[in-house]
């Protein structure tokens, strides 16, 4: 799968992870350019349908980032994200989508370096998995019908 550049959509909470991603920038920490970030106020706002929508639209992977447990700007929103995540993974399995394509990570506002590492690691992981077939598979299904 040489030359495959995955597209990854990232949903980042505003207070910790988005700020951490900004810090990676102000610190000029370099990481892979495959991530496209969408900001939400809290990881609790990240609806599983956002993740499915991204995969259907052609994303090869999805990153969900929130504040570390116990450190949510909205007291406990990240726990809600944490509870939804295994259910989402199960749903992906049921749909026949490799659940490793979706990853939940905690990144605080001071963890610019960690953010860069998370993005690099996920990019590598998705690169190994290859392109997500959901979109093309869907098109095929439609054509057969």
């Amino acid at each position, binding site marked *: 799968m040489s030359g495959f550049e995955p597209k990854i959509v990232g949903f980042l909470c505003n207070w910790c992870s*988005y*700020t951490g*991603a900004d810090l990676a920038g102000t610190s000029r920490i370099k990481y892979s350019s495959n991530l496209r*970030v969408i900001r*939400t*106020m809290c990881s*609790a706002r990240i609806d599983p349908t956002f993740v499915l929508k991204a995969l259907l639209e052609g994303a090869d992977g999805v990153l969900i980032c929130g504040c570390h447990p116990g*450190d949510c700007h*909205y007291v406990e929103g990240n726990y809600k994200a944490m509870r939804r995540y295994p259910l989402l993974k199960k749903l992906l399995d049921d749909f026949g989508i490799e659940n490793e394509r979706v990853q939940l990570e905690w990144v605080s*506002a001071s963890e610019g370096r960690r953010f860069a590492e998370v993005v690099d690691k996920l990019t590598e992981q998705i690169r190994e998995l290859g392109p997500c077939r959901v979109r093309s598979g869907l098109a095929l299904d439609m054509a057969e019908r």
Partner: protein
Amino acid sequence: MENPKIGVYVCNCGTNISKLVDCDQVVQSSLDQPGVTCAKSYKYMCSNPGQELIIKDIQENGLERVVISACSPRMHEPTFRKALAKAGINPYFLEMANIREQCSWVHVDPRAATDKATDLTRGAIRRVVHHEPLEKRFVDMCPATLVIGGGVTGLTAAIELAESGNPVFLVERTGRLGGNIANVDLTAPYLDSARDLIRERITRVRDNPLITVLLEAKVTEVDGYVGNFTIGIAPDHGEPLKVEVGSVIVATGYKPFDATRAKAFGYGTNPNVITSFEFERMLRNGKIVTGQGKPPKYVTIVHCVGSRSEEFNQYCSRVCCMTALKYGQEVKSALPGAYVYDLYIDMHAFGKGCEDFYKSASAIRTIFLMFQKNTAPQLLPAGPKDDCEMFLRVDDKLCGEEIDIPTDLIILMVGMEARDDSAEVARLVNISRDRDGWFIESHPKLDPVATTTDGVYIAGCCQSPKDINESVAQARAASARILAKIAKGRIEVDAVFAEVHQEDCSGCRVCNELCPYSAIEFDFDLKRSHIISAKCKACGACVTACPSSAIKGRHFTDEQIFAQIEGVL
């Protein structure tokens, strides 16, 4: 609004963005997007001419939506929202694409960066179509302020606010005011008395009837939002109380590094090894003595104990170098025949008057030796014939030789650390801490005393190590921010919150328990939930959880986010 006219502005940010991202190409591909009627790139969008460019286009070309691809929205979103308002359209008809912090500054390949910037801009274009006009909300500003911490920072903030005619509740954990400075003798570099400085502060606080001082007390609850906080305070003795304030200043300071952790020096077991704070106490008592009760002939000062080390804290504690020089002065003045050795890693004499102070330390013949970072001088016993209590072996970088220094008294310059309760305090007032436990400011350069929670400010050493003048400046900065809000009387708060579409609500009450702010009420007659907008902080947890999709998170609606997803891919 069907097919609104969109303007796209791509900022070069000098060369910060344009040196990696082909801004003209981003402009070109934006023009291919439906609804985009104009797209331009410019040197600095945030500058006055940059903003004028946008305003002119809105007014002359009838733009209804604006996309700005530039720095992080955390930086300039308020700036551009104001520009939109100035041009006469709703400020929320703006969307920013972050192509600096999250693109040009973190990537190396110009093509990949340009592709990413194009995708992010396209996401913003698709999203902005669905933006809705939001109206400003105003809330009353309570003029009272809670100040947590009674050190020089908290005292100064209390004085500033109260002397402008506003009530202050000053809560101090211990039984006395003054904080760490109350334990210090003289201050560097001008050698004025810390006691005099702090006594003046305390007197002014005590004399002001607008300041309520609560000693041996703890803040237990912070509820509400900017302008309207309810604070629970629990004194160690007496009844807990509740007070209403509009703002909170956190000035909880630091704790000294625990020298027993730096085992190499034998602190705690060797009576002739003391910390800088213990030495301050000696100075204040007017008697410099060894563990044996004799005046020392050789005094050795060791810098950076717990600071600038791989083992303990990597940061510099900033005040210790000048304090060490001050000890040289104070030892020489009390014991003119004594020798003072100053063992440092690097001498940080950065503040006003500090370089002169360094020179004067040389003039009084303080002997400077430089040792390697992450090494510790080695303690050796003295023989019966030696005229000292012990030796310190130093690998001196200045002369390149190993030197055994005779020593009677070792002073360890202990650094500053975040207080043990900093996590608890952060949780209480809803602010963040960095990896070392210091509280995080809203912006390191442009917004140093505000935090991510509106109405909560940080000042002094709880943010990071500082000297007295910097702490005082921050206390005054935080007070000025609050006074500006009090002067307005009513303050604008974000127009972003969630609302329940009554006709879609099934009354299942799933959202009721989810809200961390108890902002959702259930109407038992109508059997529907509704949101009290003033209490809502717009996290969106209820929006996602609602099984009927009856809750709309303003400015973060499903349509907006779905459109952005389509756009970035």
